């Protein structure tokens, strides 16, 4: 017990986040201290990041709560992305018609939930942590109560989420029934192919496929991404999606890795269909939030390529892709939140805010996979890992999809620089969204020019989970 207590420090980042969640909740009860609540949240995230930095390289566990380099990398991603979302929110919530304390509290609780997810090594902790994050994000999506579309988004998200939770619970209980264990490592040793295991597998793929918005479980994504407040959309794309991929990794690689032969083909097919459908449907969207939602679906497909490849590089690059995707999407939703969600509202953006215009251009090129930007490298490693596993058709489909995607990202760039707009509102105002966009852009450029340290860290990290 004394031993366990001495490892209490590994959970301190989560404790900081939860404490600050309550602080933020009480800081803005009457809607008069909106910015204060935002800054408290930001401070909470920054403190947690700083503490987490001191934990680099620390390995330890509190019962089934594990901190290893894998969990560390994901937590860093969650905290950093949530901090960016908090920065976006400070400006974006000026339009809120009520107090914003609970918004920030929910944001921090959702982040804490995601952080617990990546540390969970048994099914029960995993499920509870997952639900903490999910429930908070349902409420976040519906946060603009006075906006019909935000309500619709929240409700849709909740219903789909509840359904998928039920599927996941069924799947998990079947696995428990088969193996009698809840610890992921014990499960991977005990489980073997059987009809019931297949049933569990199908339910888990459907349930978690929903969370990462893999086709055919993606239907909610465009509506929710479009309807939710844009700062929340940034959170869903950056943090929730990464959490979904983390769960995929933990359940399928760590828990069901021994059944690889049974699920690899399914995941590979889902990855191919997800990439293709996301990119093709995105071609015809005129609402940028919706277009980015479909792009987000496509990017989930890219990440699944790495899981289907099932080799160290594939898993590392799936995580890497979530890092770059978080930066690109958080940044682009920041700009969209500031400028408006129809593509016409981006027309002539360069005249209104040169910094935002340039940052958005970098995001779009990075999403399309132009070298040398961060988005190129993560895709490169994903497809390379698929080749190494002999899934070269999947790699080829991925490359073709990257080509298709250029067209809709180019439309945004065209709107920003080429089409002239009569609208010349606000000339280069330095808003919080621009700050967030600049942070993301800097990250993309640095990782793009010098990706070596990131991929090295992640390759180190996945040694902890790869069997």
């Amino acid at each position, binding site marked *: 017990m004394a031993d366990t207590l001495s490892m209490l420090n590994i959970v301190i980042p989560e404790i900081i986040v939860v404490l600050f969640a309550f602080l933020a909740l009480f800081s803005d009860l009457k809607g008069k201290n909106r910015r204060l609540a935002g800054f408290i949240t930001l401070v909470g995230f920054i403190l947690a990041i700083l503490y987490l930095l001191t934990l680099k390289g620390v390995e330890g566990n509190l019962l089934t709560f594990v901190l290893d380099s894998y969990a560390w990398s994901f937590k860093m991603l969650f905290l950093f992305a949530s901090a960016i979302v908090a920065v976006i929110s400070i400006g974006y919530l000026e339009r809120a018609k009520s107090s914003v304390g609970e918004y920030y509290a929910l944001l921090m609780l959702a982040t804490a939930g995601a952080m617990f997810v990546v540390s969970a090594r048994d099914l029960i902790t995993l499920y509870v942590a997952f639900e903490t994050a999910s429930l908070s994000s349902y409420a976040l999506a519906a946060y603009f109560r006075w906006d019909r579309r935000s309500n619709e988004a929240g409700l849709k998200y909740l219903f789909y989420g509840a359904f998928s939770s039920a599927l996941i619970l069924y799947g998990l209980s079947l696995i428990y029934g088969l193996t009698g264990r809840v610890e992921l490592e014990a499960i991977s040793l005990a489980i073997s192919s059987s009809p019931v295991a297949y049933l569990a597998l199908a339910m888990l793929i459907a349930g978690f496929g929903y969370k990462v918005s893999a086709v055919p479980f993606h239907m909610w994504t465009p509506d929710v991404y479009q309807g939710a407040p844009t700062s929340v959309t940034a959170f869903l794309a950056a943090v929730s999606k990464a959490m979904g991929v983390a769960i995929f990794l933990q359940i399928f690689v760590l828990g069901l890795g021994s059944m690889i032969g049974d699920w690899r083909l399914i995941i590979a097919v889902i990855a191919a269909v997800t990439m293709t459908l996301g990119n093709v449907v995105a071609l015809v969207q005129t609402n940028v939030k919706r277009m980015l939602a479909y792009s987000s679906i496509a990017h989930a497909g890219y990440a699944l390529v790495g899981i289907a490849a099932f080799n160290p590089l594939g898993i590392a690059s799936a995580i890497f892709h979530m890092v770059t995707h978080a930066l690109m999407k958080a940044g682009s939703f920041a700009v969209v939140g500031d400028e408006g969600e129809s593509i016409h509202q981006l027309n002539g953006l360069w005249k209104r805010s040169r910094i935002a215009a340039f940052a958005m251009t970098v995001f779009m*090129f990075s999403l399309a996979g132009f*070298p040398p930007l961060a988005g190129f490298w993560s895709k490169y490693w994903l497809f*390379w890992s698929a080749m190494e596993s002999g899934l070269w058709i999947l790699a080829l489909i991925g490359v073709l999809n*990257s080509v298709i995607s250029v*067209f809709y990202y180019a439309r945004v760039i065209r709107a920003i*620089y080429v089409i002239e707009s009569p609208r010349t509102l606000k000339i280069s105002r330095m808003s919080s969204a621009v700050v967030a966009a600049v942070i993301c852009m800097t990250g993309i450029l640095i990782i793009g020019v010098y*990706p070596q340290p990131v991929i*090295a860290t992640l390759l180190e990290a996945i040694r902890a989970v790869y069997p």
Partner: protein
Amino acid sequence: MILSVILILLLLGSILPWLVRSATIARCVAIFFAFLSFAASIYAYTMFEGSGFQFEERYEWIPSLGISYHLAVDGLSLPLVILTTLLALVATIYGVDEPKRDNQFYGLIMLTCFGTAGVFMALDLFLFFVFWEIVLIPMYFLIAIWGGPRKDYASFKFIIYTHIGSVIMILAFFAMHYLYYLQTGVRTFDLFELAKLSIEPKLAVILFIALIFGFFIKMPIFPFHTWLPAAHVEAPTSGSVLLAGILLKMGGYGLFRIPYTFFPEVAKAYAYPIAIIAIVTIFYGALAAMAQEDYKSLIALSSVSHMGYVLLGAAALTPAAITGAIFQMFAHGVASPLLFIMAGTLHHKAGTRLIHRLGGVAHKMPIWATFMVTASMAGLALPFTASFVAEFTVLIGALEAFNVLALFVFPAAIVTAGYFLYALRRAVFGPFNADLHIYGDVDAHEFVAMFMLVVAIIYLGIYPIPLEGIIDTFSVAFAGGV
């Protein structure tokens, strides 16, 4: 170091104009850096000795993938680097057609030159690809923002065509990278290392075709040329200067540097089909140019025809043919930009480029007409212009390699002379068309841009040795190696 210096100067020239608001200062900054980079490339020329790759620089970039920042130039790339910096100077001096967002315009012009110079210098296939893609982006904006009436269509077609070519090209790069990894367990994109690869003949053919496909689109070679008339006609004049002057050369350069270096046996085995494609391209471009009413599309299609000579030289693979092909890249790289500048000036002063609406322009614009005649003579490869030296050398080389087949090219020279002279007769000479309003002769800055190109054309036409000397160091070794 000198190569990095050239790149840094061009890069500075493309970033700094964005930071100033005044159009004049932006232009001066761009011209200043273009001039410095041109001076640096001339300095590199004077320092170039002997043969082989020189001024080599190599730094690890992403070691885990074997990607390095590896630059060097040889007799093939140095002339093209000089051409790039020269055209950077010419394009910035000529400037923007319609004054709007000038600072961005100059930044993009310089960024295009930065990417192109990088393509000519890079000896790491990945670095090559990065520069290759960098070129695409500013050129898209140049056409889409400052282009003519059909700029949307033209810029989109440009980006689709060249991007598809790039993707197929990079797939072939990755395939070679992967094969090398399988054979040796080492990851590298280095050109020298990958050239050592032993690939089975069938796969070599596939890779060869994949590689030349990307470069054919860029050159462009019939039937992948359809993006070119649209892009060249709609692009602003300085954009056309760069498109015709150096972007097409990226295709020709890549052809020699990559597929022909890696798979010389395949290139030899398919010499005849490639030569036939080249001859078809030469004729197609010339005949299509004859049918044009817009001076700019005439010039654009003449580019297709002229780039066919480059491919013909490559197919022949004799020292003379290769020297001719590379010389042709340089010669066309100064003649075609001059023609585009003439067309751009004409459009400014006369308000139209349509040949049937012109007539007797020489009466009102004598200086312009003088330059136009010189440019047309360079276009139709009159002796004492650089193009003549180039095309003549290619034909000599092709005769050595293909005998009778090469004779089929000669009628094309007549067609070429035909459309240039016919256009001159209708547009520039004859009685003055009274419906035409001409607003003065050429401006000073236009004159400077034209004059620089004319000097290059005539000088190399009369005394080609300075250029041919360096090119020969490459082509003799190359043909010997093949």
